[in-house]
């Protein structure tokens, strides 16, 4: 697992549900076909109302034009990130769009499990609210070993929570890799 992840942040509000991450009408595409599955990247966050897309100002597109990937690889969210349906298409869509890490104040359980067990993205929890301290486009750096997020413009550091018991699954890169490593499955 890569220990330092750097890039421009894309900032969102509270209660970003899975319909905003990937609207239900797009769930029909194949997740395994290499070409078709790119559509998930293209439609990532397409359900976020424009005023709330890319805080604090809003109106910033996560995916530009016909692209399937975003220039933002780090998402900063608020509380209850990923609430709503159980669709694993949600963390998958973020991964397809090029997201590596989401930092949110808290997560809905199924989204968190899906992110970790599928090994799609790394979901980290901030200590307290930070989506009002970072602006969309701010370059940030995440240090996974020390659980910190640094705003690179001025070096301001924010603490992240330790992932606890799920860290071995995150480090292995997903549930199957973990189960194989630990001898649960052959």
């Amino acid at each position, binding site marked *: 697992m890569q220990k330092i992840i750097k890039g421009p942040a894309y900032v969102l509000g509270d209660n970003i549900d899975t319909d905003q991450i990937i609207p239900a009408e797009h769930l029909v595409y194949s997740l395994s076909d290499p070409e078709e599955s790119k559509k998930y990247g293209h439609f990532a966050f397409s359900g976020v109302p424009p005023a709330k897309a890319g805080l604090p100002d809003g109106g910033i597109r996560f995916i530009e034009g016909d692209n399937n990937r975003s220039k933002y690889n780090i998402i900063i969210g608020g509380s209850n990130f990923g609430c709503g349906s159980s669709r694993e298409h949600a963390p998958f869509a973020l991964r397809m769009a090029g997201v590596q890490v989401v930092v949110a104040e808290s997560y809905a359980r199924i989204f968190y499990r899906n992110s970790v067990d599928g090994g799609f993205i790394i979901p980290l929890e901030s200590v307290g609210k930070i989506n009002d301290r970072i602006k969309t486009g701010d370059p940030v750096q995440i240090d996974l070993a020390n659980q910190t997020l640094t705003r690179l413009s001025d070096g301001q550091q924010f603490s992240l929570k330790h992932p606890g018991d799920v860290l071995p699954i995150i480090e292995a890169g997903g549930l199957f890799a973990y189960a194989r490593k630990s001898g649960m*499955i052959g």
Partner: protein
Amino acid sequence: MAMTITEKILAKAAGKKEVSPGQNLWLNVDVLMTHDVCGPPTFQIWKREFGEKARIWDKNKLVIFPDHYIFTSDVHANRNVNILRKFAKDYQLPNYYDVGSERYKGVCHIALAEEGFNLPGTVLIGTDSHTCTAGAFGLFATGVGNTDAAFILGTGKIWEKAPESMKFIFEGSVPQYLTAKDLILQILGDITTDGATYRAMEFDGEAVRSLNIDERMTLTNMAVEAGGMNGIIAADEVTRAYLAERTSKPFEEFQSDPDANYHSVYEYDVGKIEPLVAKPHSPDNRDTVRNVRGTKITKCYIGSCTGGKFTDFKNAALILKGREVRVPTFIIPASPSVAKRLQTETIDGKTIEEILADAGCTIAPPSCAACLGGPADTVGRSVDHDVVISTTNRNFPGRMGSKKAEVYLASPLTVAASAVTGVITDPREFL
């Protein structure tokens, strides 16, 4: 050690004497349920990870319902159903309920109940967030994604962190103008959409005990709207009677110990609760119907695993009987068996289906339909700036179709009253 009902069931499934909140557990799964949206990717992951020699851990424990995107011309959606069909055939699965066949059962959560899969004391996992509905039968039921489901498909196991429990006690006798939907909207307004994240929500009290299975399932269905891992109601005479008509499989009932530990306990007197709505765009955006009455609506929707059960339509019919709707009103029974009951059960000599049709409602075939928007040709889907009042469970932006639409969640009584007037209306005006 004193334990809650959830802790006792998890202990049994993990092969332990006791468990406490926070403990990581590997559980043996009794039923794995999937549907047309999540089944195909689940099977694909299972094959990829276990290789061509992949084996299903127990065919009898796998249950598959096509229900989400089925009555559509969308090619991708139809492809998903074909994948399920082929998978069921290739592996000769006993519990596949194909759409277009006599076996079709409608919306998965209601179908699980009707087919007798919801057995007290068991662990039921589904690739759908509303899998928590099954907790109405005193079992541990929760939703997962495709990877977790693929893992279960091959191993029969899942990891879970034992949740803390929250208890919600409703005392008193439920007045005619109130339904389980109002009770759960009350809770959601109090604890918000992440108030129960990673926790069990246990429902109890005289009022809950008086509810039939349909109504109990409305409570547990929306546990996930508060972020809950599971919702649960201990089995009792009502549960046993429902099951006796549907299955002869044995089961074990559990009860919370009186001195079990809870994260929090909420007590309500149902006599003090009034008809409620969740305003756009969140299920916790609670208000009284009284406060928003007069709000103009363009569409009414009665359906889904939350509000498309027999009792929901019966409630709607109590108000729609002999009246006419002023706005397009969609009736989507959750299952063929519900649809059939609408044709056979009567109020004052008229079947419920006749009452609803005479009132001018559009009655569609059973499925999830516009509860989750769906492809453009989905019946009841919201368009443009629709203002919808609906018995479903989610009103996030775009959930029922149009991102510009506004959705109010309410009980079938409130939706029916609003359909008659064209504006949001308190059902007490008609009862």
